[in-house]
């Protein structure tokens, strides 16, 4: 597998036409190294999915540029595999025996199995980059935890570059080498957090002091979405919305 280095330069994305047009993503600069696992963390509607869609080539940016290994991203390509929250398996096609379960239509599979098949399908192309848009967002907590472990296994074997969008802080910190925290719309990168924990990671990690400290930082950043990164305090805010976060 060749490199997989993603570079975003002053990337901006506008959605909608005419009067309903708005800026979804503004001035995003980032470099994602080959084989790196990066999570994009942000509140609902911050433009993180739009940013991922631009990396997939499903949406064209209107400012700046996005490149993969120096080549401009201009449309969808199997070298950039995409995994969605709601599976996009073709409802009329049966899963293959060797994707780990018997031949069934997608509607006959559980949510976790649907996402496993979705990921397996994307990986069959041996993509340099795996783009994941809240792939476990619709799963229950237990299934989600086991899918995260499965994803890390698959990733450590093949080491594609992964860009993983989520609004779940625990998920981002458990999975990533680095977390890009995005602000409210128009979305831009508020802060980059390095996640230094050793791999392979165990579930107990989420209760360790270092993990909790990083989590507080994320909560603060997400709690003050309009404030500058400097203004965001290290203290936990008085009112914390942890409804999206999963403690398992």
């Amino acid at each position, binding site marked *: 597998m060749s490199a997989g280095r993603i570079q975003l330069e002053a990337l901006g994305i506008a959605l909608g036409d005419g009067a309903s047009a708005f800026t979804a993503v503004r001035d995003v600069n980032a470099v994602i190294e080959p084989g790196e696992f990066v999570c994009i963390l942000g509140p609902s509607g911050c433009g993180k999915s739009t940013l991922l869609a631009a990396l997939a080539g499903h949406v064209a940016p209107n400012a700046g540029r996005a490149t993969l290994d120096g080549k401009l991203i201009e449309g969808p390509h199997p070298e*950039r595999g995409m995994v969605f929250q*709601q599976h996009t398996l073709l409802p009329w096609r049966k899963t293959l025996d060797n994707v780990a379960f018997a031949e069934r239509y997608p509607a006959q599979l559980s949510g976790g199995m649907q996402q496993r098949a979705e990921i397996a399908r994307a990986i069959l192309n041996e993509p340099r980059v795996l783009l994941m848009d809240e792939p476990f967002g619709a799963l229950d907590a237990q299934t989600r935890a086991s899918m995260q472990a499965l994803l890390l296994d698959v990733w450590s074997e093949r080491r594609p570059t992964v860009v993983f969008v989520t609004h779940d802080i625990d998920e981002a910190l458990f999975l990533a080498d680095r977390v890009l925290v995005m602000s409210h719309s128009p979305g831009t990168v508020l802060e980059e957090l390095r996640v230094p924990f050793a791999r392979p990671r165990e579930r107990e990690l989420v209760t360790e002091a270092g993990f909790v400290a990083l989590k507080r930082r994320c909560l603060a950043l997400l709690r003050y979405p309009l404030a500058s990164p400097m203004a965001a305090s290290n203290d936990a805010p008085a009112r914390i919305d942890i409804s999206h976060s999963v403690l398992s």
Partner: protein
Amino acid sequence: MATLAYSAPSLLRSRGARAGVQWASLALCIALWHLATTHRWNLGIVTFENVPTPADTLAAIIDLAHSPKLVAHLTSSVRRIAAGYVAAAASGVVLGIAIGRSQWSRLALLTPLEVLRPIPAVAWIPLAILMFPSSEMSMIFITFTGAFFPILLGTIHGVEGVEPRLVSSARSLGAGNRVILREVILPGAAPAIVTGLAIGMGTSWFCLVTAEMISGQYGIGYYTWQSYTVQRYPDVVVGMLLIGLLGMGSSALVRIAGTRLTPWLAAGRIR
């Protein structure tokens, strides 16, 4: 689906009971027809004084069944319907996909088609006769107009309803336009296309009498209209019943074929 079945009255749980209700409803209709015509009900706005009774109609059915012309009537009509329907299915699905997929086709094609759509089959008779040198072709054309629009609209509706994420995802997996059409658009639109095809089959029969007004000697529609002009009213009812039954039967065949072609829909309901 399961919750619906559970909330149904217990009386209707058995298959036999449900069939019983259906047959009883048919029997009641025939009984009412019998009462209205034998007692020559006159309800002011509608009168049954000159309507054939079920017994007269049954006698006419037996007559027709023994007539050597029955097969000729049936084959003429079925052949016309089949030709018009196949042409309508092919053109309706192809144009529907084009209109559903491409802004250009939509802008260029949809307006004239919307103008043509409300024109009833009977209004096409003069032009059909002028346009087609053979009366057979003009009749096929009339049944075509009946079937075409439901199929076209069903296909457009189905193509527009295909989940955009499925298309995006297929592109990310490396699918080109042709593969997307075959693997994503067509199967995704299939349920709506099948509905359009089943309705189109019914409306094609709907236009049969109109079409066969042009006919010289054979066809169920011709038989129905001819019986009226020579005042054999029981035969008119026989013709009407034949058209109704054949239309219902052929629509059901289309639905059964459609269910066979879309097995994943049933699979989704089981879970």
